[in-house]
């Protein structure tokens, strides 16, 4: 594919698609519906809802940390692939950040499409050897005493960061709290809005 222009890539994709559908092994509907789901129906709001529930319901939070898939399914109404989801909790002394150094494994079912920077070699290569500097580039400046844990998603397990609830949000509803949680905070590369 190296050196081929966009027109060629589109034609080659179309050639493969038409041949595959002719084999009867896949359908056009399956090809389009899968992507539509990830583009439109699934997004970081799923993860944000999970976080907001964990912030307001200590028993849910305990279930979430124990069995990520079941707890996430409680909020999303099911449909999460049975691969394990491990939720890692940020605290005053530990900050978590997620990567897939070998490719770009990402919790698509909970967060939707991954950001470009997450899939590119620069982030994948640097975050495992200089996470503190990488976090600064994302605007996250941590006290040197805060321990950083980088989770390399080398297996089928998907990691989700549970950020800390911001101070001064006691009166907010679950819906309002969810709006504070952005995608980057769920990866560990950002902080929730104050």
């Amino acid at each position, binding site marked *: *594919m190296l050196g081929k222009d966009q027109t060629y890539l589109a034609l080659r994709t*179309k*050639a493969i698609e038409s041949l*595959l559908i002719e084999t009867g092994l896949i359908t056009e509907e399956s090809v389009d519906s899968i992507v539509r789901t990830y583009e439109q129906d699934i997004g970081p709001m799923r993860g944000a809802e999970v976080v907001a529930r964990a912030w307001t319901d200590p028993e849910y939070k305990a279930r979430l940390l124990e069995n990520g898939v079941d707890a996430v399914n409680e909020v999303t109404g099911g449909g999460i692939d049975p691969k394990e989801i491990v939720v890692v909790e940020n605290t005053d002394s530990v900050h978590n950040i997620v990567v897939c150094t070998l490719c770009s494994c990402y919790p698509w079912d909970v967060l939707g499409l991954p950001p470009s920077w997450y899939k590119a070699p620069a982030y994948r290569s640097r975050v495992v050897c200089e996470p503190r500097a990488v976090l600064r580039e994302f605007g996250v400046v941590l006290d040197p005493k*805060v321990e950083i844990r980088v989770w390399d998603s*080398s*297996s089928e397990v998907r990691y989700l960061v549970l950020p800390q609830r911001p101070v001064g949000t006691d009166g907010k509803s679950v819906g309002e709290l969810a709006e504070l949680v952005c995608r980057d905070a769920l990866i560990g590369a950002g902080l929730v809005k104050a």
Partner: protein
Amino acid sequence: MSVPGPHDVGGRGGYGPILIEPDDGFRAEWERKVVGLTYSSLEAELFPADRWRARQEELHPLAYVRMSYYERWLYTLERNLVLHGVLTEQEIDVRLQEIAGASDAGCSSSDGSPDGSANAAPERLPRAIRPPVLEAPLPPRFAFGDHVRTRVIAIEQLGDEHTRLPHYAQGKLGIIARVLPVQGLPDAVVKCMEFRPEHTYSVQLLGSDLSVDGDPNASVCVDAWESYLEPAE
């Protein structure tokens, strides 16, 4: 120790700055289609996900960084469909020319394909059907808090062989941070289509062990299959 493949970038330099762009969507319709075709093919079990990942690893390092992310998806989709006997390169070329309406040989076949190889019918492999239940034959060898050493795993032929233990994490001391579920060993799926269930673990490696400027207050937790680990001395 073998040279890491082009995909195995953890801890290596030279990839430039992290470009934090606001968009994460598709830049062209064909990219969207490639994702849909890939997931449909995996659902139809035309080839296993491990081989889909592994085939990208045979790319020349220059190609790996210069191809866009979804170009690599298209590359490995086509390679896997061909290698698993679903389609042939020749029929893809012919269909491409039909769609393009080209009357001459202007649209050539994929890069690097020697003359004649596209005409040979590939060996038809059985569909890559994963068993419904994966159970390890023995209980977990390791437990939370155990000290372990990660093995050094040599890959002789990228693309045909595969491991999920990153180069930076090989031959290192670590501590079991979590016991994870039983998972099929990717190395065995790629090499011989064997769905070998093993216990897996999250292994915490100390930052100070991973690089010269290692932050003593940082660590990397990498997922490891049991055969990647040995008890530490």
